[in-house]
């Protein structure tokens, strides 16, 4: 789990983490890019220079370019004249990296947070995880579609309160 606590080595890095914690994900604005685990590292490389490692959730996620632009803008506003943003692919992003705070925020926003642990990669039939309805907490829910409005979400329906809701996929 990446958190500010174990990655901050200098005051400049703390400033940068704070600046990035303000950036909302373009698709799920209730989460910051830090909550989502997209910021892999921050390294101060000079007095006003900083390197940020970002990882995409899905390789084709259209939000990736928007996030990169927002990070550059936020770092410049925080006083880093020459920020450098690099793409980090290893290890690949996992929904397990969502912070505890991020999971709470998602639920409150009406999106069920991801289940943990993935089963055998080659199994064709994977029973859909038990997902609690973010509105009424009932576990009597069913999968409507494995794909949703963004690459990171699937569609579910609650059989208790009858509301459809989105589930943040586990990868």
């Amino acid at each position: 789990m990446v958190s500010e606590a174990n990655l901050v080595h200098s005051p400049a890095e703390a400033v940068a983490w704070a600046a990035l914690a303000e950036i909302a994900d373009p698709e799920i604005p209730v989460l910051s890019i830090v909550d989502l685990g997209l910021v892999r590292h921050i390294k101060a490389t000079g007095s006003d220079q900083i390197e940020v490692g970002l990882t995409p959730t899905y390789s084709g996620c259209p939000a990736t370019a928007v996030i990169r632009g927002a990070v550059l803008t936020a770092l410049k506003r925080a006083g880093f004249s020459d920020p450098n943003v690099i793409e980090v692919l290893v290890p690949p992003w996992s929904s397990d990296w969502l912070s505890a705070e991020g999971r709470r925020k998602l639920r409150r926003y009406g999106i069920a947070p991801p289940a943990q642990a993935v089963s055998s990669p080659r199994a064709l039939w994977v029973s859909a995880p038990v997902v609690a309805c973010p509105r009424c907490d009932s576990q009597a829910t069913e999968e409507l579609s494995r794909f949703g409005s963004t690459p990171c979400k699937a569609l579910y329906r609650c059989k208790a309160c009858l509301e459809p809701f989105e589930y943040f996929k586990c990868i």
Partner: protein
Amino acid sequence: MSQTPATSMAEETAARLDYVLQLADTSLVLGQRLGELLGHAPTIEEDLGMANTSLDLIGQARLLLALASEIEGQDRSEDQLAFLRTESDFRNLVLVEQPNGDFAQIIARQFLLDAYQLTLYEKLQQSSDQRLAAIATKSLKETQYHYRYSGGWLVRLGDGTEESHNRAQRAIEQLWPFTCEMFDEQDSDRLLVRLGIAPPMADIEAGWSALIDEVLREATLERPARVPYRWFGRRGVHSEHLGYLLADMQYLQRTYPDARW
């Protein structure tokens, strides 16, 4: 004189470039084909499924084309590689340029390819090329999702009604001849295997074949007989369909060169 011919740096670079372009173009062309289904899939859930899969494939193609651009070292960007190469420069499998057809054909094409990418990416995770290994590891997570989608549908179609069974069987038979080239080993492939960059074709074929047998059995579909090689998209020889697809995909950049968002 030495027994094994020394491989020149130029040969190695050409082989790596060709290999990465094969992977990139296969993802890119299928991503474009699936994009054509936006708003046209049989239900909204399938529309979302096709769009999401398309997006993943185009994302993977971007990562791979960026790598190809670096290997080539000619200052051609990933966009230039995607939008300004001609048909015979494309290295995709002929399978993925085949038109969408009915839902059974769309699912069969997807499944044959997903099983291939699943096997290939699993093995490429151990590539001696760190960048390629990283892209494979990232892509694998998405491919597993695609494979469950297409495999699950193939079973439902095959083991469904008489009509869906017949259509699924016909689709598999129509597309089968295009699968042979997946395992058509060329000199450049053997070179990359020696360098630890690419896995041996025989391993990919065995892995793919096992997945195909397992799912076809569950789908109550018959595996078609082996056919002789007929297609060589990986060498730049394509069916008539690719030209039309590229004309559509490349139109904007060809008409308004260097247009940007």
